């Protein structure tokens, strides 16, 4: 202990402007990169690395570390070990503020209409190891057409009380009537996409119940035999519609409001091509159908293996739905309904990012398969407890 010495250190922290959480001091504003409160780098080091990688041929991180180490040793000072350097440089990518959206957009071509744009495709061999493949890839930026699914819980559900209620609701702890009323009021004011994002974090898709906002629509769906026949995959009728009527139908479903109605001719054409769906939507108020659910509905009508036109606008839903196989599960069967029809709402036709061929070939990816199957939350809890017990019994974390 004689070698120990006491040092005075300054601890810096940042307050998040949106919430009251403390953030670690990254130091980028002062030209310093703070890696996990362990090592401080001047920002020239990661910048120099990535500049050299982008300009010079085949610069590896290990090679750059050797060069930096030699520079430091000339001035009789030490440099970090390669593993720390590697981790720090990778972590820098998540800290540095980059505008990926503008950076991956051509300022000239974005001003052209889509029909006049030109795109070129080509493949590049840059493989990642099979064992390390995990989950569908998320984009580091958020776009209105392609929202990022993995969002922090406190950003989705900003009120702590609502978060507690949702947690109790999904874990079957039981809610008082007034609590249920509060939760219902909250759900009615929340986007369903955000709600599913939130519930997904609990990994309890089996416990998810049909939200109250959907019940009217589902009742209407169940009472209309034409609609059920249309939704049913085997009894698909009138699929001879052309692209124009498909587009018209999409616009009708998504944009039809009292202020912006379609013309009578367009409605007649939709009725002619899609009589069952037209009748179905006429039975329920459009205000009761959340916007995100339109995509599900349209996808069931049109998204088969040989028709993928409508998937253009369904990307957020498919990102979400392949995680949550059974979205709509009722707590109890409604009147005049059969369970088969509810199972039809399961939208697990394909993984969106990984096609069915990939799934069949890669059966060994356990982490990836865990997303496919419904995970029992109790089992997860048990495994977490075992890990924690093992850490306590050994005295050291298992990874060390």
């Amino acid at each position, binding site marked *: 202990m004689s070698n120990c010495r006491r040092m005075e250190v300054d601890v810096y922290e940042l307050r998040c402007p949106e919430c009251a959480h403390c953030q670690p001091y990254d130091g980028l504003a002062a030209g310093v990169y703070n890696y996990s409160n362990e090592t401080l780098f001047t920002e020239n080091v990661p910048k120099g690395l*990535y500049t050299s*990688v*982008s300009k010079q*041929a085949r610069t*590896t*991180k290990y090679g750059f570390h050797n060069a930096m180490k030699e520079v430091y040793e000339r001035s009789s000072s030490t440099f970090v070990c390669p593993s720390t350097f590697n981790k720090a440089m*990778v972590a820098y*990518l*998540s800290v540095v*503020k*980059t*505008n*990926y959206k*503008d*950076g*991956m*957009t*051509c*300022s*000239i*071509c*974005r*001003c*052209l*209409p*889509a*029909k*006049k*744009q*030109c*795109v*070129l*495709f*080509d*493949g*590049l*061999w*840059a*493989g*990642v*190891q*099979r064992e*390390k493949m*995990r*989950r569908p890839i998320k984009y*580091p930026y958020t776009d209105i057409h392609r929202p990022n699914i993995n969002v922090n819980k406190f950003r989705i559900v900003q009120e702590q009380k609502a978060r507690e209620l949702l947690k109790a609701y999904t874990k079957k702890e039981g809610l008082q009537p007034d609590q249920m009323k509060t939760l219902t009021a909250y759900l009615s004011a929340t986007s369903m996409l955000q709600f599913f994002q939130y519930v997904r974090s609990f990994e309890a898709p089996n416990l998810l119940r049909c939200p109250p906002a959907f019940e009217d629509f589902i009742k209407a769906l169940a009472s209309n035999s034409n609609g059920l026949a249309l939704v049913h995959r085997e009894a698909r009728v009138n699929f001879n519609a052309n*692209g*124009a009527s*498909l587009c018209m139908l999409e616009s009708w479903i998504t944009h039809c409001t009292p202020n912006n109605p379609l013309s009578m001719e367009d409605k007649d054409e939709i009725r002619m091509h899609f009589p069952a769906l037209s009748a179905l939507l006429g039975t329920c108020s459009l205000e009761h159908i959340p916007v995100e659910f339109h995509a599900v509905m349209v996808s069931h009508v049109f998204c088969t293996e*040989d*028709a*993928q*036109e409508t*998937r*253009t606008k369904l*990307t957020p839903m498919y990102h979400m739905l392949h995680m949550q196989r059974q979205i709509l599960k009722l707590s109890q069967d409604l009147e005049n309904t059969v369970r088969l029809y509810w199972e039809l709402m399961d939208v697990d036709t394909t993984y969106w990012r*990984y*096609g069915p061929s*990939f799934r069949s*070939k890669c059966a060994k990816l356990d982490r990836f398969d865990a997303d496919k199957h419904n995970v029992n939350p109790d089992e997860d809890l048990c495994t977490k407890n075992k890990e924690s017990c093992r850490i306590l019994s050994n005295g050291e974390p298992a990874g060390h």
Partner: protein
Amino acid sequence: MVSPQDIRKYSGVKVMYSHEAVCRAGVILMHCPHGIILDVEVLNGAESPVIIFNMMMRFMTEAPGLIIYDNACTLMDYCFKRAPGNFKHTVFKVDRFHFCNHTACSEAFSVEKWPPETPVISAEDIVHIRNFAEKHNIQLPATIRPITYGDARHIPGFEDSIPLNTQITEQNNSQLRHISTPLAFMTHENYYFYMLYYTFRFNVKRMSTMFGVGEVEMLRRMHESAM
């Protein structure tokens, strides 16, 4: 020569071979004719038209007017069978380097068989680009030149044009190939972040050339717009 199957069959020695490759296939990149990388898709198997189709369906609200791909003939079949309404205005072309392999395909897939003055970005489009950028406050390079299928600079009215570089994807890939070695040893998340950051820096370099400013200045502009 004795094959591994023979060894296994006759000698009883168990020969272990991996049935699948250790690494996944790679990525598919979507470029614009100016060389900017617009989208990156990680491949999980062989490169196929399905990937291209899905990329376009996800990335673009409408199908583009011109698609250049080395397997464009199959891609055209795939797109027209799946989404004929979306691709009814789209022209499919094979790039110049790979067209010699398409011996059984129509010559309509070739870029060179068409008149060289066929516009990709015409002068009228540039006027539209300028107006759109002014309206939406988008910064544009000082000079924007029209792009044609071939070299049409000898034709009156097209002296300022530049030919479409169908090899821009291959040229970019030759630079992106530098990072394939470190990428092969990364985890999935690191792989994706590294790939994206590299393509971002690559685009910044390309944009700095387009705008005639230094790369550091371009990075600073990007940083300001991200704030």
